């Protein structure tokens, strides 16, 4: 006992520094995790998690029988899958292309321009995109389209993927460029002496150098597969495309906060979080089995 007290006294200032952080994480991260209990209760906004009657798996049954939920889940998986296929490799390719530029000034100008959209919110970009792709005032007609892709159910998912790529591909290169910058120049020299051409240098020196970064980002990305990005969808979608664009995040928002069905929305949110966690753990396991370094 006195040993503990002594140790505590010796370290008291560190605990003082740590205290706000620990309070924060418990209050704003762990208490909401406890709040997940309302997915198993008949929760009303007038009650609390402590006095609401238990409902077992009732809300999960309702959820899995609701056609809206399946539509949202289907859209989430499809949109997320498209984004993974197209938007995950895009910054890798772009980083390799940027790295091949010999003219430093041109490279900096390109970087300055393509990083910018990352710093602008989806609300702002949304209104710009509405204007640019408006049938009346935008470039839609010039592109040979009769309707705006934002209003067209067949084109909307593609538009989501494309607009996200446009916004994030530049900024996405930053982490790969940093990894490439860490490559020892002697490796390139040695490969050149061995007669490697430019494409062989990319293939055998640059790519292996960023492989571990790619793996880490891929694992993290897999854990996010059911998170499409609330802002983008919420800003861009509209009644014409609800059927192809409603995703789990917008579903949870609508059911929970607009309709006030808190238990049902929490059940949907829990489903989303658990699937994400399982995918993350699974990918990490898979990656380690393949002999790469995982997250833990």
């Amino acid at each position, binding site marked *: 006992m006195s040993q503990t007290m002594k140790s505590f006294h010796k*370290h008291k200032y*560190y*605990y003082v*520094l*740590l205290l706000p*952080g*620990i309070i*924060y*994480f*418990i209050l*704003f*991260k*762990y*208490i*909401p*995790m406890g*709040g*997940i209990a309302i997915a198993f209760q008949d929760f009303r906004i007038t009650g609390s998690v402590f006095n609401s009657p238990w409902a077992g798996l009732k809300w999960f049954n309702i959820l899995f029988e609701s056609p809206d939920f399946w539509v949202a889940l289907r859209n989430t998986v499809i949109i997320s899958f498209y984004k993974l296929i197209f938007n995950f490799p895009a910054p890798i390719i*772009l980083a390799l292309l*940027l790295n091949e*530029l*010999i*003219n430093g000034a041109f490279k900096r100008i390109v970087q300055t*321009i*393509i*990083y*910018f*959209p990352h*710093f*602008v919110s989806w*609300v*702002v*970009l949304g*209104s*710009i995109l509405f*204007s*640019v792709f408006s*049938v*009346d005032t935008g470039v*839609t*007609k*010039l592109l040979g389209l009769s309707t705006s892709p934002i209003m067209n159910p067949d084109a909307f998912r593609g538009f989501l993927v494309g607009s996200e790529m446009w916004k994030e591909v530049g900024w996405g290169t*930053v*982490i790969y460029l*940093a990894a490439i910058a*860490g490559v020892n120049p002697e490796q390139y020299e040695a490969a050149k002496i061995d007669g490697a*051409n*430019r494409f062989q240098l990319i293939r055998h020196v640059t790519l292996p150098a960023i492989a*571990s*970064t790619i793996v880490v980002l891929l694992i993290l990305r897999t*854990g996010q597969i059911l998170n499409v990005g609330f802002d983008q969808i919420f*800003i861009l979608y509209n009644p014409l495309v609800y059927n192809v664009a409603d995703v789990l995040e917008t579903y*949870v928002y609508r059911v*929970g*906060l607009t309709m006030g069905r808190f238990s049902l*929305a*929490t059940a949907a*949110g829990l489903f989303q*979080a658990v699937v994400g*966690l399982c995918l993350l753990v699974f990918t990490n396991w898979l990656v380690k089995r393949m002999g790469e370094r995982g997250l833990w």
Partner: protein
Amino acid sequence: MIQKGWGERTFEAGNILFLALLSLVTLYPLWHEISISLSSAAGAMRGGLFLFPRGFTLDAYKSVLSSSFIWLAYRNSIIVAVAGTILHVLFTATTAYALNKRSLPGVKAMTLLVLFTMIFSGGMIPTYLLVKTLGLTNTLWALMLPGMISAFNVIVMQSFMRTIPDEVEESASMDGANPLRIFFTIILPLCKPVIATIALWECVGLWNNFMQALIYLNDKELFTLPLLLKEIIAGQQLATDTGQFTTFAAESAIAATVIVSIVPILAVYPFLQKYFMKGTMLGSVKS
């Protein structure tokens, strides 16, 4: 100098062309919006490429800036971005510093406690109910406190702090300074690069934060810029009805609001850029 092959030169030219095109495609929408915001109502309604404003006028800006709500939203966004960033940086730093003390009893458990929040969370509804219970809904605190520390930034900060030699602290504690003093007078100043990076990320994030503003704010006096902008777009008609926008130049008025709301980002962008590489070096240290 080794002679470059035909294939390599084609690749080089194609690469330059492609990246130049990409830059143009990135710039165009922004330029389109600026042009519309400076166009007359009639000019804005005509479609096609906007390479220049049509019927140059500042009317849209006059109309937007005469609305009292845009100034309130500006004020709210600045409060959230500045105060939120200060809170975020300060408490991320204190947490990271203490968690770096390997000899601290319980430090492993507390590190796990922090890291676990990166892979699992309570979700939107339980967090909303907590914020509501705490009485923070319809206050600007709701935009700052729930995201006050991020586990990711704690890790970034920790890895930077590990690069500070132990001798720096040791000599200070031999002079009788306690850890609080050491943290504020020695460690924080040495962490300037990482603090600048995290502060800029966080500041931009808070400035652009839409979802939390949407969920937590009802009172129009408390709206931040993204929420106001969304409301203007959604309720264009309503805004006209309530006399916020007296002209019919809705297109150009929205465009002007958009430009007004990104001016601060444009202003800090060159400064931000200085920290690009530094920030990502820190990010890659993490993995």
